[in-house]
């Protein structure tokens, strides 16, 4: 095929064969080898969608499919590949477990990383996890601080993000000053927040009703005064999707049994054991005498002479039971971090139905967002357990490394482009672009027109379909090229 193209000076090619799905790139390569741009090719799918899909004689249909492809091919224009340089720096927003680990891993791979933490110190909620997994916060922070290509900004926040993958301009407030820096990619690892107050059910933290966080502190203290005789844990109280709180409950219940020897009751609807080692933990807790009681209706909680009375209907016993606890550990509801709404608006990135970062779209999982080069990992994208958060960390490192490590990205230049003569700057495309790849070009002396970033564009064509001035051309799927195929319908 290559020599035929070369010898006969062929300038466009139609292949009438099998589906382009798996072979288009092979034919494109053949064109390229002959010195012809790979985009000057159409594949008429006369196997999967013609010969194999129908009974009887389908020659007519095959001919028509070929005519359609020929019509389209006539109008094709070359699309050149272009190499663009990208900034290798990565901004990691957050200072907790996921943020620290991803910064450390990124820097090990040689990518200069900036760690931006809202608080004045690093660490986030790691200390709470020490209890569960037995690791130490200090060395992790030291590792980040000691790494030579990690720049740490504490008491800092993101004010504005402009630009595209490879060259995001981020305006940062650090203390009283404002700084602007450029990064190739941004990783958000802003963690989660917890809430324990539930006024309606009097489950409010106080002396006898405490949070997991408070319990973790109590357990860390070497000799607690006045060990509680009876401890109750309640979860599935707010919602039924708590994975991390379940793990915390199981490990803390076990720790109480072992350290304090108290009677421990765990009240819940379902024990969420779909994380690594969770079912084992659940068994272990039962073996150590932690009593589990499952309810269908929410338990009633009331104060009882300095202690807490919990009334619930146990589904196993089928009857009401009353527990008088010295201490009740309330479930922490996992919430998106404060400011998520504002930041997602600022970034034009959708959040999920629970308000966490990252839309509920399977194609974005695990860590991507609709904007190339912006990633979300760990607690800020959902209620993850420890293993899943770690997988997020390494995934994002791989993603970022794949994008930036060579310092350049090869893109198809101007595959989707705006005709500045036709553009009326109506902003429609900018508003509809799902990947925020379009912005107004503010070139001095010329009229403002929309401009599509080759780097950020994902070639969906939504803008080309909606442009009221027909100023956007999507090479390969332009209006003319689509209509040319329709033109061939039925024509002999």
């Amino acid at each position, binding site marked *: 095929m290559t020599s035929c193209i070369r010898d006969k000076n062929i300038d466009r090619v139609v292949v009438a064969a099998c589906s382009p799905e798996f072979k288009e790139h092979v034919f494109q390569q053949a064109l390229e080898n002959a010195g012809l741009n790979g985009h000057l090719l159409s594949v008429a799918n006369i196997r999967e969608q013609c010969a194999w899909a129908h009974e009887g004689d389908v020659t007519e249909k095959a001919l028509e499919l070929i005519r359609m492809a020929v019509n389209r091919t006539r109008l094709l224009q070359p699309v050149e590949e272009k190499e663009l340089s990208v900034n290798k720096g990565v901004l990691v927003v957050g200072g907790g477990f996921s943020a620290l680990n991803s910064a450390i891993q990124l820097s090990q791979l040689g990518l200069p990383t900036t760690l931006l933490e809202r608080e004045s110190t690093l660490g986030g909620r790691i200390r709470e996890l020490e209890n569960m997994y037995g690791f130490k916060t200090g060395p992790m922070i030291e590792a980040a601080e000691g790494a030579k290509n990690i720049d740490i900004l504490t008491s800092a926040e993101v004010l504005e993000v402009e630009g595209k993958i490879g060259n995001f301009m981020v305006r940062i407030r650090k203390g009283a000053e404002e700084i602007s820096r450029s990064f190739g990619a941004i990783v958000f690892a802003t963690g989660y927040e917890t809430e324990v107050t539930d006024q309606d059910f009097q489950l409010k933290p106080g002396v006898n009703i405490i949070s997991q966080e408070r319990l973790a502190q109590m357990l860390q203290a070497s000799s607690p005064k006045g060990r509680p005789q009876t401890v109750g844990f309640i979860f599935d109280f707010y919602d039924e999707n708590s994975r991390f709180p379940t793990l915390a409950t199981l490990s803390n219940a076990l720790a109480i049994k072992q350290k304090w020897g108290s009677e421990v009751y765990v009240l819940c609807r379902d024990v969420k054991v779909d994380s690594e080692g969770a079912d084992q933990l659940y068994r272990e807790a039962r073996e150590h005498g932690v009593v589990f009681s499952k309810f269908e209706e929410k338990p009633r909680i009331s104060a009882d002479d300095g202690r807490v009375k919990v009334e619930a209907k146990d589904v196993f016993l089928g009857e009401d039971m009353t527990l008088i606890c010295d201490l009740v550990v309330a479930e922490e509801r996992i919430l998106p971090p404060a400011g998520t709404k504002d930041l997602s608006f600022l970034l034009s990135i959708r959040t999920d139905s629970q308000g966490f970062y990252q839309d509920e779209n399977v194609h974005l999982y695990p860590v991507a967002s609709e904007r190339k080069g912006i990633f979300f990992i760990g607690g800020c994208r959902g209620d993850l357990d420890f293993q899943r958060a770690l997988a997020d960390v390494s995934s994002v490192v791989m993603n970022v490394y794949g994008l930036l490590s060579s310092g350049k990205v090869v893109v198809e230049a101007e595959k989707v482009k705006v005709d500045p003569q*036709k553009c*009326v700057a*109506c*902003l*429609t495309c900018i*508003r*509809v672009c799902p990947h925020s790849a379009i912005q107004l070009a503010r070139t001095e002396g010329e009229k403002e027109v929309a401009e599509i970033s080759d780097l950020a564009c994902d070639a969906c064509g939504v803008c080309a379909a*909606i*442009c*009221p*001035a*027909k100023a956007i051309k999507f090479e390969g799927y332009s209006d003319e090229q689509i209509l040319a195929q329709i033109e061939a319908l039925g024509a002999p």
Partner: protein
Amino acid sequence: MIIAERKPMEEIKQMIAPYNKLLLAGCGTCVTVCWAGGEKEVGILASQLRLARSAEGKEISILEATVERQCEKEMAAELKDKVGEVEAVLSLACGAGVQTMAELFEEKPIFPALNTAFIGMPEKEGLWVEMCGACGDCFLDRTGGICPMVRCAKGLLNGPCGGTRRGGKCEIDPEKDCAWVLIYRRLEKQGRLDLMRKYYPPKNFRAVKSPGRIQAVKA
């Protein structure tokens, strides 16, 4: 910006019923931005008309063209050759554009394909809201930059009607905000609530003398 929308199909069909050779003229400014009369809409309407005619078993030949602004004689004049080829023109411009065309090509019937609706702004893509009634006597200075004449369903100039619903919604259309609640909040933000207490006499609607005409002094 001028906001327009396409006329009902029946009306358009009746207007052009006697003609078999048409020019569909789009306008590349306001009506393109409000998705009513740009190149894309011209294409869609042309296609619709061809389909309608072919359903009736009749022929029609349609030329399509869009100019930057039909309300400019110089720009509309670019259509001269095409107008010459057809029996009638269907203009997808605002009223000003249609009239410019009509003035320029007096011998040809020029039909409006759009209803010019109001001066407004986009709230999001595909949704435009009225902002200005072009009364010729702007008083936005005392209403916090919100015009009650067009944004209040009753066009009240001295506070709300009393029928405001919960949440500051309009009595007539609960989808819409009560303009006077918006004005109150805006003035409150600016610390200028005293303006709410002032009485303003009925508006002088003769500020714009029809037909309006403005002569720039510097010209």
